[in-house]
């Protein structure tokens, strides 16, 4: 009798435990199987994205996504790293506490709020353009990166820096020969994750970016439309073909994000190996 209850309990436990992991991936399966008609895939190769006229070219959507993400991340990672260095090595205890608290709040603000702020301050100056979108992404993405970078520096570079300072290293030497060497792989890994986050940003960007492609290629002072934005805006009224195109956009976005996340993961693995005793 006990054996049967034991087995039933084991089955229940396993099923319950698997709900979450399976649901994590079932969404991916949905995206891939979502395309109802194979011939629609051909439409994805067309140049323009204009669902009203039956054009579903994804190329410039991808360009917009990557473009805005890079324009946001490059200054973001730069300023974030400098800020992390300040927090870790130069800030006094009180200054660090304040900085971390404010950055913590910033890191958890909803996308809508970041979008609203960009709308209030930057869009009047920059217009509904890709650059506005990049600003919104910058606001969402830089605070979390700064906090991660600071944590990385604290755990990996703080002690070597103290030792090196006692030997007489100057600030620039410390940065070049100790901090960057010790933390490089971790910071790049965090950077990859940040870029992935930037690519997936939907709400904030779509509030300020114009959501239509007038000029091709969409440069910084043109209205733009990202993959995520297209999905978010188009989902409500999408008919079958349009919906397939949105699923395809989702698959591509997923692939980009996953590649970055895996790169970050494997970088982390390798840097961990180097430091095992």
């Amino acid at each position, binding site marked *: 009798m006990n054996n049967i209850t034991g087995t039933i309990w084991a089955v229940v436990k396993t099923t319950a435990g698997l709900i979450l992991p399976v649901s994590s991936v079932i969404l991916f399966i949905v995206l891939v199987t979502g395309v109802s008609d194979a011939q629609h895939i051909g439409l994805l190769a067309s140049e323009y994205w204009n669902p009203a006229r039956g054009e579903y070219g994804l190329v410039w959507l991808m360009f917009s996504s990557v473009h805005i993400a890079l324009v946001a991340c490059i200054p973001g990672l730069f300023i974030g790293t400098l800020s992390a260095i300040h927090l870790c090595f130069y800030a006094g205890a009180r200054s660090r506490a304040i900085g971390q608290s404010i950055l913590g709040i910033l890191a958890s603000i909803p996308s809508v709020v970041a979008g609203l702020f960009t709308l209030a301050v930057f869009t009047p100056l920059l217009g509904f353009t890709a650059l506005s979108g990049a600003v919104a992404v910058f606001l969402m993405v830089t605070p979390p990166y700064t906090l991660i970078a600071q944590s990385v520096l604290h755990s990996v570079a703080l002690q070597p820096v103290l*030792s090196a300072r006692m030997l007489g290293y*100057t600030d620039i030497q410390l940065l070049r020969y100790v901090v960057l060497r010790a933390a490089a792989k971790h910071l790049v890994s965090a950077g990859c994750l940040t870029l992935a986050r930037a690519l997936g940003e939907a709400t904030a960007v779509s509030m300020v970016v114009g959501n239509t492609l007038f000029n091709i290629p969409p440069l910084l002072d043109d209205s733009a439309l990202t993959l995520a934005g297209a999905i978010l805006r188009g989902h409500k009224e999408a008919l079958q073909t349009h919906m397939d195109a949105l699923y395809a956009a989702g698959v591509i976005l997923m692939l980009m994000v996953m590649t970055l996340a895996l790169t970050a993961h494997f970088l982390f693995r390798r840097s961990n190996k180097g430091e095992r005793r």
Partner: protein
Amino acid sequence: MNSTNIPTIDINKYSLHTPTALILNSISLKFEGHGMVAIVGPSGHGKSTLAHSVARMLNDYTKWTATGDILMSDRSLSQWDERSLRSRIGFVMQQPAMLPHTVADNIVTPQTLINNTDVATAHRCASVLMYALGLSHHTLATRAHKLSGGEQQRLAIARAVLLSPPVLILDEPTSALDPLATATLIQYLKDLTKRSRVIMITHDIESARSCERVVFLRCGESQGATITADGSPEEVFDDPSKPFEFQFARRLPMHH
């Protein structure tokens, strides 16, 4: 660059407080010329704190207030700029951190960066020192994290010594070393004392006895550590009129 003259370290009625406690109570010590001094005493009584004070390496986390002063060559320690200070005083922590990533990054690169030694000479000096300290079975390309605790400690000492500071402060340099390595290190340091001043924090009595001067630091009945003995090893450890020090040196448990 290091000076051929060894700066005098003058600790002048130096007291150190935290908001809640007195750590060092009016310490007065003078170190002149070359030689080796051991600062001994029970754990947690302030030896490390004193060493950190002299090397101007007190951490920022605690709110320290200090009275009295520490002078190097008749100038207050706080008035020296960072470069001049570090080129004169070398400090090796109790649990030193390794610089990333290899052994060479730890003992060759600092020489080239700080003393502007050319790479070939730096390599040569590094190899010689590794041999002297018993580390020669590792190559310069070994990753520093792979070394054992004792080897890392010796590497950190080599790192500081190769920069030729006239004053060298070592915080518990033998704590992770086996007896042979300890003996090798002490012998090396004795050679070093012919041209520099070595200050060694330790609670290893044998090592302390190899020094020509021993300073005993401990907390008495009142708060804060004071110097209870200062002289040759015999004067400090073998004097029956100083029961605490006498028993400490003979590893006799104290009865209160």
